């Protein structure tokens, strides 16, 4: 009988430990599914749930806070996800928290991520609908990646062509292989440096000149700055003006004279008219002029004869000597 009770004790321990494991198993699963403890319901809406299922985890800033309870189709573009959240989270989740569907790892099961927003907002209450954030879709990512890849391939192709061109360019290689070119370049650079130094000096000089002009030094300065000079200039301008007036009067008088002459000519009176219109007087004038020409020629011959005459030869020689002396004096005075 004693043996029997010991056996019963062992049996009791055996069965109890088995049931204990079952209870732990069920409790742990229930705890993960939020079957025990106080919970509340939050809702969110998506246009695509990407294979989210009831029982998937809900995370708030990465912490496991609940599970998806139900997924309802509201319309063809709106799907409402009902989530059971641990009531302890009620004082942390705000109304403007953003939900999105993510993946646990790269290929894991789907999860709903709730992320807090920076702006202040009141805390959530039971059955609130949270706004949804931007979806990070693997398909979208792959599509973008493929586009980037093709662009990179295109760029690589172009680079390849460029590299081939560069490799086959004889001129470029000649430039690269040229050993004199660096020296030349260096020399040019030093020349440029000198030139810039000179330009700098020049600019400095110009600066000085401008400064002195500003201060009224030199003729340009006095022109720009001196007030007496400008007065004188003004006087000169006034005089020029007066001169202009006199010239104007003279011109008017000349005009009158010319008009008188014209009148005389037209009326056929006066000396000028006679001179201009009378053809016989013209003939007379011409013969007079030829007579005068002949007369002066004869007079020239007489004068030449006079020069060679012994009475006057002495005078002419004296005259020549005086001229020569004058010219040497002028030369001496010109060269001190």
């Amino acid at each position: 009988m004693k043996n029997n009770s010991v056996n019963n004790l062992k049996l009791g321990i055996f069965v109890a430990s088995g049931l204990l494991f079952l209870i732990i198993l069920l409790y742990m699963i229930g705890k993960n599914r939020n079957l025990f403890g106080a919970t509340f319901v939050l809702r969110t809406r998506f246009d695509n749930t990407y294979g989210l299922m009831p029982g998937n985890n809900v995370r708030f800033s990465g912490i496991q806070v609940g599970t998806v309870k139900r997924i309802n189709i509201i319309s063809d573009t709106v799907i409402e996800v009902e989530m059971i959240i641990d009531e302890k989270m009620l004082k942390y989740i705000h109304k403007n928290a953003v939900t999105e569907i993510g993946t646990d790892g790269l290929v894991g099961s789907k999860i709903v991520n709730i992320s807090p927003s920076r702006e202040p907002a009141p805390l959530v209450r039971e059955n609130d609908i949270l706004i949804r954030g931007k979806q990070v879709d693997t398909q979208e990512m792959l599509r973008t990646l493929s586009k980037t890849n093709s662009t990179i391939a295109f760029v690589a192709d172009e680079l390849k062509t460029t590299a081939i061109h560069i490799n086959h360019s004889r001129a470029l290689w000649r430039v690269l292989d040229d050993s004199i070119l660096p020296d030349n370049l260096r020399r040019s650079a030093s020349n440029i440096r000198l030139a810039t130094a000179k330009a700098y000096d020049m600019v400095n000089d110009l600066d000085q000149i401008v400064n002195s002009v500003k201060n009224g030094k030199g003729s340009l300065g006095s022109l720009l700055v001196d007030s007496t000079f400008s007065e004188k200039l003004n006087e000169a301008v006034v005089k020029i003006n007066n001169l202009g007036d006199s010239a104007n009067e003279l011109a008017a008088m000349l005009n009158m004279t010319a008009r008188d002459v014209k009148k005389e000519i037209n009326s056929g009176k006066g000396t000028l008219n006679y001179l201009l219109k009378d053809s016989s007087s013209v003939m007379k004038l011409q013969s007079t002029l030829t007579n005068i020409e002949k007369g002066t020629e004869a007079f020239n011959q007489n004068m030449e004869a006079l020069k060679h005459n012994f009475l006057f030869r002495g005078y002419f020689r004296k005259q020549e000597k005086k001229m020569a002396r004058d010219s040497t004096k002028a030369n001496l005075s010109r060269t001190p």
Partner: protein
Amino acid sequence: MELSKSVRQFLLETGDIARFMGRFFHQLIKPRNEYAEFFRQCYVIGYNSLALVGLTGFIMGLVLTLQLRPSLLRYGVESQLPAMVGIAIVREIGPVITALIFAGKIGSSIGAEIGSMKVTEQIDAMEVSGTNPFKYLVVTRVLAATFMLPVLVLLSDAISLYGSWLGINIKGVTSFDLFFSQVFNNLAFGDVLPAFIKTFFFGFAVGIIGCYKGYYSNKGTEGVGRSANSAVVVSSVLVFIIDLVVVQITDLMGLN
């Protein structure tokens, strides 16, 4: 002709087993329950099988982990090893391996025990002395098998998971806490409850086949051996058939 004879034999035996089960349920609800014998059988069938079942469970957990590890490593999901091993053990490996070991140990022992009682006419003597032999021998054993196998499976699961944790720690380092939470985070009621419920059917099948084979044992020592042998074979096959049926039902219920 030969085929039709064997088919006929099979159908006859199926009908006999069905009748035997009907008799079991009929006797079960009749008063005067043999509690002391039931608990003794529970001790013999359940507790005494723990060492064997625990050893096989531990080895299964360890080996399964080491076998799965290279494949998962190739896909870079080594961190999912606890989840995968946990689901495999709880859903399938634990119940089926334990039930097969149980069929080998308990099915044969029940078949041999009752068979030898039948052969030595102890059952007839029991009937003469006023004790209901079916109630005393069959009902207690079948009930003990039905209720002890689930407990054995649960303990075997626990030991397997421990073995799996050791297996992970042979090649890598995972804290028990992390392993524990990874296993339980990936288990659902749909994994645990069907597996737990089907173990009752496994235990019942092993008990009822063992008792049937022993109760209808042929005369002679050869008959005892044959009944013990066929008890193991039939109950093992039946475990797989029940497993197949259960997986179909859970699938229909959407628990997979």
